[in-house]
């Protein structure tokens, strides 16, 4: 077995400003890595660089395909890269409107990836979409409704279904519970936790919420000022943080 995703010294500069600097890590099949840090710490920039949405200024992103071949993202043709991204990978945006096609129904949102990989049987597309809506706890009779009529939590769950329908191996999430009510967050979180465990997905989750990291991730990476300052097992980082900033972060969590 080898790493699914290998990040080697990835940096991104915005002109003279540093987005993220010199980040390296490996992600193995089934692992969930949380990237935490305050706003502006470079966590979203890093996520975009490693998920093919943004080109890093320097550094390498390598992915091990289903066929066992290791490919460098920047060495792939655009066609290959885009195919990989929409079949083997998923991306859950913080704002569901970015990740959904708001102009078409929920069913079409879930079915799109299937159609993109060549499924041409309406009945099968629809039953798969229904199955996935069920898995993310959306009632089947909402399948033809527009995402505009959905609540924030439902939109986020729809976005997750839309991403998982092609059985990806790796999913990137940018603050997946950001902007949701606390009760809605909890529901989404254990839904995500269940899906990730059941499907054996590998995931990279960017969050500033340590509770999200605690619940979903096995490993954590703490970023500050564009740099990775601490990495380790999630429980180790939370219970025995080493760096001053990490200690501040952990001690700032409100206890209820």
């Amino acid at each position, binding site marked *: 077995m080898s790493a699914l995703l290998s990040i080697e010294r990835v940096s991104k500069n915005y002109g003279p400003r540093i987005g993220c600097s010199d980040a390296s890590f490996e992600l193995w099949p089934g692992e969930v890595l949380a990237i935490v840090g305050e706003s502006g710490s470079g966590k979203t920039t890093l996520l975009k660089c490693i998920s093919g949405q943004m080109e890093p200024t320097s550094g390498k992103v390598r992915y091990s395909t289903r066929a066992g071949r290791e490919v460098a993202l920047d060495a792939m043709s*655009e066609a290959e890269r885009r195919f990989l991204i929409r079949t083997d990978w998923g991306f859950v945006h913080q704002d569901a409107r970015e990740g959904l096609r708001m*102009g*078409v129904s929920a069913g079409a949102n879930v079915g*799109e990836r299937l159609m993109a990989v060549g499924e041409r049987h*309406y009945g099968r597309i*629809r039953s798969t979409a229904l199955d996935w809506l069920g898995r993310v706890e959306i009632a089947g009779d909402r*399948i*033809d409704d527009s995402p505009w009529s959905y609540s924030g939590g439902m939109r986020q769950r729809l976005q997750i279904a839309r991403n998982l329908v092609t059985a990806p191996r790796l999913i990137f999430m940018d603050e997946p519970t950001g902007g949701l009510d606390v009760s809605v967050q909890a529901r989404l979180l254990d839904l995500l936790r269940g899906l990730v465990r059941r499907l054996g997905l590998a995931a990279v989750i960017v969050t500033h919420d340590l509770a999200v990291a605690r619940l979903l991730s096995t490993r954590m990476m703490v970023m500050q000022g564009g740099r990775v300052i601490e990495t380790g097992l999630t429980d180790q980082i939370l219970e025995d943080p080493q760096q001053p900033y990490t200690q501040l972060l952990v001690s700032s969590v409100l206890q209820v």
Partner: protein
Amino acid sequence: MNVPAYNFAYLNEQTKRMIRRALLKAVAIPGYQVPFAAREMPMPLGWGTGGVQVTAAILTPEDTLKVIDQGADDTTNAVSIRRFFVKTAGVKTTEVTEEATIIQTRHRIPETPLTEKQTLVFQVPIPEPLRFLEPRETETRKMHALEEYGVMHVKLYEDIARFGEIATSYDYPALVNDRYVFDPSPIPKFDNPKLDNCPALQLFGAGREKRIYAIPPYTSVKSLDFEDYPFSIPRWEKPCEICGSRASYLDEIVTDDKGGRMFVCSDTDHCRKQKSAA
């Protein structure tokens, strides 16, 4: 006639060459949208400026021109474009499909089968079939380049989910030469099968959008569909009330304000021939 103040068929020769280059490229890559520097024409955008420029670029003094709008030779748009070319090129015109060498059309393909000697010029409002789902032109070009056409089926999926069938009845997307998904302009889907393997050259001009595309003779054109919802064309319960044709595309004409209406051929030339044959 005095020396005209303009060139044959209105456009100057440089402009025609530019358009012909675009046309050659379009024919070489069937279904691909070629950008071209569309000119201002002495008619409003939306009245067929794209089609007129294509026609002007390919017209020769020996040609016989037919112009139809919604299948009819006698509507305002058709009449004014025909007069435009009579005045600027002095070419012969006709209403009989078989006699024409160039047919400029808006929203229909003639019922009479076309031949290798003919060229059909379509007026196109929106050439980009992906625009409904993806408004960014940079992105749609990339999607064409990479053959990412999954979203086209999203549109058809929506139709079935909402109406129980593919309700798109015109502007029906199709795949040209197994490569490019294209927008056949707002012709009824009834006409889509005529695009396929057609002996005539088919040219498409979009003036406002500044795009030209083409289907060379005998090119495969497949209308998109689902395995369990195959492409189908509409049929009418009654025949044309003028000529009795059962195989042509019918228009609904409202005849009074008491709900009276009749169904007649949209192709006026076809209707007249059917009637005189009967």
